[in-house]
């Protein structure tokens, strides 16, 4: 089980959360140029890295807020927590 540092409630157990998948997947501008290929990519294509990934998480059983975090998909290490809408933080050197 992961211990996830909720930015509002502090560290809580993983079962209190729901994972919302990869962060920073930009929705194509449908109004300007309807494009099936771009929309299919937006819906189905994910980076799925071996290493650090940005994810959206929802503290469903706590404060019910969404936030982003950086998680290493190999080690499960969580290196950053940041608000929705914020850019992805640079990895520490």
């Amino acid at each position: 089980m992961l211990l996830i540092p909720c930015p509002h409630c502090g560290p809580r157990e993983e079962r209190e959360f729901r994972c919302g998948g990869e962060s920073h997947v930009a929705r194509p501008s449908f109004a300007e140029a309807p494009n099936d290929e771009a929309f299919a990519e937006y819906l189905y294509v994910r980076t799925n890295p071996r290493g650090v990934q940005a994810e959206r998480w929802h503290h469903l059983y706590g404060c019910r807020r969404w936030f982003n975090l950086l998680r290493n998909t190999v080690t499960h290490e969580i290196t950053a927590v940041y608000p929705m809408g914020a850019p992805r933080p640079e990895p520490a050197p």
Partner: protein
Amino acid sequence: MPDDLTKAERPTPRSAFAEVAPRGLFERPGVVRLCDPGHRPKTLLRGRITSAWSAAAAGVLGVVPPEQPGVPAHSPVADILWLGPDEWLVLGTGPGSLAPILLRAGLAAAEVGDGLPDLELSGPRSRDVLAGGTALDLHPSAFPAGRATRTRLGRIGVLLQRVEDGGDGPVFHLHVERPWAGYLWSWLADAALDHPSNNESFPR
């Protein structure tokens, strides 16, 4: 709709625990005691914290709603529990709901007492029984009397409030959304059977 059919005119609804606990009481001596304290008004308060908003809320409630999780704010009028960064539960100390007064002060409030019943869990083993269903650290050093938080117990979400640490063990109030009230009561009563009671010569 005629006035006599509005919510305020209706009689107090049947207890949310009536299906599973008609007497509103379950006791396993030496382990836990479950008690249905009955209906009381509760108000859900929403708002983005600004100095004007805090002043308006404090004007009605007598105290500024807490900005941090955990420790509630107390005043002679109400206890205010932190639920989220823009969400609070106001437990009025009077018999009536505070929602109309908060609404008149220009705050977003809703009366949720009918939909959010609570039960009282007390007894020497109440912490052990809860620990079987939640990952929260319930030791007094991490979750002392006076604290409240939403968490997950068994398969459902509850608002867990440690009211006091009495001589007979801690006293918890568990606020639960009404559809899950029966599940919560049954789960706690069932979990209490895992612990040996004073009345039994051998543990089951």
